[in-house]
């Protein structure tokens, strides 16, 4: 615990330094504290310290520039070492452009003695930092080639302390290829990496790589392959909230395409709820898919879904769509779908919108059935805006199918060409209350069973002495601190 508090202090000081217009020397100092953190993390085998390093890196990445990065590399990597000679060319290209900003610190100022051996973690961190910098500078081609080098290098090590950094590296590896628009090229190397991660029991790596592969497949609409991969890989217990959210989102999308709407809805809603509030784009995307899935299920999402802060504009087309489905107006639906076709195409939801047409008709029909106790099929066709030569015959078969599927409660009189709605009787005389009761009991039992399964009984726990009041206070305080820590980490960069 003592270590933890110390770490937190160093974290807060570096965070406090940030807002002040920091001179480059300051970044170097900050980066150096991070290196110290990495070294401590390796010594104590603490994964959490590595996570913290990545978090702090994210806060300073925007302020980095080529000269300060170069001088940092020169100071932390031994002179003449292989990684140094590899990394510097990438940065010096960049440096030529903004030479006038800042002169690099004189070389050899405080270089590490060459004999001290370099921790692999520090080396990979240097690669990662450079890679992030290149991506931020939009040098995607350079980022691509560097990431290939870095991934090759990271494959040489088999150290669990490296997992966090390696997982991040894989992410940026895939990200740089995605930005360069050639995601399909790295599919086989991602698969190979995933295999290696599984063999080495690198669970964070497996999780990250599985998500990257799913992303890769879905980028090319290869839902079939994605589902096959997903269902055949062994799922490891989730180590990172972000990766879990991503996984749920991809799973939700696959399920939507395969018409398993109930499961898809669950996944998508969970993903959007679990996602940290800073990941606005991700949550918007989740919400868009969730709205469509709920419409396909015949539900109407609440108005508040579309009014969430910062999402109104992005969700506008989906709001209009929901409105059209709610009213059951085929004409309005058609015009909304046409006006927003470009948005829907970009979101890859165009085909789902086409599927919705059927729901619009169903809703319209339900409205008609509620309002009229008897109506001629010709009028039904007119109200649904069915446009074809055989509109009445179409209407008849649509009505019969709706009756079969339980959408409306009515009978059709073929001889007179009319639809007769049944009176809604006393619901308590039907099986309805029993069904509701059944589903509630099932839910309670399920919750209970899950809770029992989740209980843990540490061995010999009952043999311990009871703690004194003072000790308990101390423990509670510590727990609170821990909870605060965890809450902080949840807001990590997404």
């Amino acid at each position, binding site marked *: 615990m003592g270590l933890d508090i110390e770490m937190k202090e160093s974290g807060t000081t570096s965070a406090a330094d940030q807002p002040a217009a920091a001179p480059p020397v300051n970044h170097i100092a900050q980066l150096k504290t991070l290196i110290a953190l990495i070294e401590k993390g390796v010594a104590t085998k603490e994964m959490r310290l590595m996570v913290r390093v990545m978090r702090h890196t994210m806060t300073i990445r925007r302020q980095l520039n080529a000269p300060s990065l170069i001088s940092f590399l020169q100071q932390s990597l031994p002179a003449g070492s292989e990684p140094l000679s590899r990394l510097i060319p990438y940065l010096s290209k960049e440096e030529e452009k903004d030479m006038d900003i800042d002169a690099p610190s004189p070389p050899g100022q405080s270089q590490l003695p060459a004999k001290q051996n370099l921790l692999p973690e520090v080396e990979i961190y240097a690669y990662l930092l450079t890679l992030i910098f290149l991506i931020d500078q939009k040098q995607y081609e350079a980022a691509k080639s560097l990431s290939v080098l870095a991934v090759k290098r990271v494959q040489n090590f088999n150290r669990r302390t490296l997992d966090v950094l390696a997982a991040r590296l894989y992410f940026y590896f895939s990200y740089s290829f995605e930005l360069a628009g050639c995601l399909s090229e790295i599919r086989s190397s991602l698969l190979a990496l995933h295999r290696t991660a599984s063999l080495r029991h690198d669970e964070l790596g497996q999780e990250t790589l599985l998500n990257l592969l799913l992303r890769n497949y879905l980028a090319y*609409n290869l839902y079939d392959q994605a589902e096959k991969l997903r269902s055949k890989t062994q799922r490891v217990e989730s180590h990172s909230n972000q990766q879990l959210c991503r996984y749920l989102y991809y799973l939700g999308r696959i399920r939507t395409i395969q018409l398993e709407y109930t499961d898809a809805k669950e996944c998508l809603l969970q993903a959007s709820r679990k996602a940290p509030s800073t990941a606005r784009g991700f949550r918007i995307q989740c919400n868009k898919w969730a709205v469509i899935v709920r419409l396909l299920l015949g539900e109407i999402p609440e108005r508040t879904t579309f009014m969430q802060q910062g999402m109104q504009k992005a969700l506008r087309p989906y709001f209009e769509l929901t409105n059209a489905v709610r009213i059951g107006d085929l004409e309005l639906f058609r015009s909304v779908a046409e006006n927003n076709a470009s948005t829907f195409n970009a979101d890859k939801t165009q085909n789902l919108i086409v*599927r919705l047409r059927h729901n619009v008709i169903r809703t319209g029909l339900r409205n008609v059935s509620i309002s009229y106790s008897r109506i001629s099929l010709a009028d039904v066709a007119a109200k649904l805006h069915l446009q*074809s030569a055989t509109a009445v015959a179409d209407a008849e*078969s649509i009505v019969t199918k709706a009756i*079969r599927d339980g959408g409306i409660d009515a009978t059709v009189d073929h001889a007179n060409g009319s639809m007769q709605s049944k009176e809604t009787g006393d619901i308590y005389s039907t099986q309805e209350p*029993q069904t509701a009761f*059944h589903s509630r009991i099932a839910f309670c039992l399920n919750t209970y069973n899950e809770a029992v399964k989740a209980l843990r009984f540490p061995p010999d726990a009952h043999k311990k002495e009871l703690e004194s009041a003072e000790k308990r206070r101390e423990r509670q305080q510590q727990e609170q601190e821990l909870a605060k820590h965890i809450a902080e980490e949840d807001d990590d960069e997404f």
Partner: protein
Amino acid sequence: MEAKLADANRLFQKFKAAYQQNDLDTCSNLLSQLKVKLTEFPALPPVYKQTSTATQELLLARDIFEHAVVLSVKMEDQDAFERHFLQVKPFYTDTRGLIPPSAEEYSVVGLNLLRLLVQNRIAEFHTELELLPSEAHENPCIKHAVELEQSFMEGAYNRVLSARQAVPHETYIYFMDLLAKTVRDEIAGCSEKAYDFLTVADAKKILMFSTDRELQDYAREDHPDWEIRNGCVYFQKKASQFHRFFETARDSESVVGRLLHRSPGESSRSNEHLHKLFVCGGKQFHGKFSMIPPVSRLCRFYSMWDLLLLMS
């Protein structure tokens, strides 16, 4: 390699000649030989080796498999169709950069979509659909399949049937005929829910039968609960909720069981009370209906209903 290619080409010309004359047996014979030849080409998926004749090899293989797909439709063999389609699929997805797109691509893909529709594999239908670029939806073959699926989902069955006249390709007719059978089953299923009765003449028209005889045979074989009398078809409505009933019974039982089990000592009086009710209730009903085992369960359920009401 060039010699092998020329050899395969010669064989393919022979195949095409037989294909033109609709000599299906010769075709399938030659096709098996061709497939053996194709195994010798390294440029084909999944190896994609960059040989000097890679483009010709790929083009030839694609052409052969496209013909094979259509051939299996002609032979009315759906399994072979699926196999051949899966073989030709990599040529449409993975070799886009290597060879120019095929003129037959959309008609083959559309045919596959139709097959999935006929086999009622709607999830796979949509998965395949996602693979197509948006401009493909303008193609008559794809459009045909997509519209069919829509009409099918809506229930506009006569639109499905009238689409048979507007097939974009003659090979589609085989699947359209199969689809007609599926549609008839769907219509029958809908009709028995939506109508109380239909006159035989109307039923014939709706179900697309030309004679009364066919209708009677169909009703006897596929829907034994329909009744034809006085020139009308009467649809019986059956209601069976027993399954759900038992499920609820089982679950309530486990709730009560848990209540009895979970409150040790704390409220021994109410516990006793519960126990008495549970056991007595059970026994009482057991005695009454002990002859019929499933019903005894049902009766225990009733006593538990009372229990739950008492507790609430």
